[in-house]
């Protein structure tokens, strides 16, 4: 398991060096591929079943999520002041519910719907992972959505800065638009840098404000899931039932975020410590996606069909339009 994770890490460093355009291809792609290949080879030797116990997707995912919480400084929500909070809150709610209702209209299963809505509305892969934990989504659903996020981020990263220049937007409006629309943080940085240094700065802060709200969204989503979607027929669930089924890692996520925010404000958290936390989180997520690849079933992927792609496409177009409107309204 460790050797495979190291191999994945190596790939994430070596491949963008060969081909800089592949910068936007993030670790889930490499990890799932390595997992798939390893699963295939071990199956040939009849070892897949017996070694499967080491590929503990849930544990790696949830520990990574607690560490993700630790890299979110809650004070960053206010980094932009009221403007940033207003922009993030407006975008997250409108895009989340738009995606949710379009997906429901197309008959997409509730858990996949939650993953799609969270990933378009907040921050791509990490939001999809968080939502997957909150609603107990299947591994295939997470792999599918992570693939969609990366696939869509790639062209938008190049097209959006061009569109911003063509529309004659000021650097701060362009930055707010890019940060509000593009899902993955790596692609936000890429697109912002293609436009201008000022746009890059504003785009990064806009993205951070959205990321900082991830814990709140995860908490509400998990609560909604246990209290409304999965409740037993007849009557409201008791508080005890809600607690028993509530995904506890969400509390770890919020607690870690609170601890780090406190540590940053009193000067305990050094930049080096924050960097180590970020790296640890990446290792856990790599191990999680590796485990997903290991146990991936193509039958389940095919079963999902074209509809999630259509939902993601429509939601991205809607997100682009609303993010432009909000960016002009708030920063214009």
């Amino acid at each position, binding site marked *: 398991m460790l050797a495979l994770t190291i191999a994945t*890490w190596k790939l994430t460093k070596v491949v963008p060096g060969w081909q800089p355009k592949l910068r936007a291809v993030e670790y889930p792609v490499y990890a799932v591929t390595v997992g798939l290949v390893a699963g295939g080879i071990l199956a040939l030797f009849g070892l897949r079943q017996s070694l499967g116990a080491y590929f*503990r997707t*849930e*544990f790696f*995912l*949830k*520990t*990574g*999520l*607690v*560490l993700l*919480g*630790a890299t979110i400084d809650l004070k960053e929500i206010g980094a932009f002041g009221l403007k940033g909070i207003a922009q993030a809150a407006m975008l997250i709610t409108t895009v989340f519910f738009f995606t949710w209702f379009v997906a429901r209209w197309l008959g997409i299963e509730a858990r996949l719907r939650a993953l799609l809505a969270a990933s378009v509305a907040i921050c791509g892969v990490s939001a999809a992972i968080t939502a997957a934990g909150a609603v107990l989504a299947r591994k295939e659903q997470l792999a599918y959505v992570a693939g969609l996020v990366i696939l869509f981020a790639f062209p938008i990263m190049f097209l959006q800065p061009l569109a911003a220049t063509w529309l004659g937007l000021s650097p701060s409006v362009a930055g707010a638009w890019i940060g509000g629309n593009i899902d993955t943080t790596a692609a936000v940085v890429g697109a912002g840098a293609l436009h201008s240094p000022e746009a890059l700065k504003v785009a990064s802060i806009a993205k951070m404000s959205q990321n900082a709200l991830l814990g709140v969204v995860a908490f509400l989503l998990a609560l909604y899931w246990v209290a409304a979607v999965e409740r037993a027929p007849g009557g409201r669930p008791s508080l005890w039932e809600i607690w028993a089924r509530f*995904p*506890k*890692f969400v*509390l*770890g996520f919020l*607690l*870690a975020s609170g*601890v*780090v925010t406190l*540590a940053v404000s009193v000067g*305990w*958290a*050094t930049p*080096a*410590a924050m960097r*180590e*936390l970020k*790296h*640890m989180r990446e*290792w856990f997520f790599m191990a999680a996606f590796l485990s997903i690849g290991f146990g991936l079933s193509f039958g389940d992927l095919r079963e999902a069909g074209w509809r999630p792609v259509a939902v993601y496409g429509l939601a991205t177009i809607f997100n682009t339009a609303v993010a432009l409107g909000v960016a002009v309204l708030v920063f214009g």
Partner: protein
Amino acid sequence: MASSGWGRVLTEDWLAVIVGLTLVVVALAGLVKNIP
């Protein structure tokens, strides 16, 4: 509810929370360095 004990209490969720928070404290204390 009769079958309480560690097996039931220490679910994967809690294990992730314990491991995650321990790593946070360890990192903030400066006990881990140079993770690639």
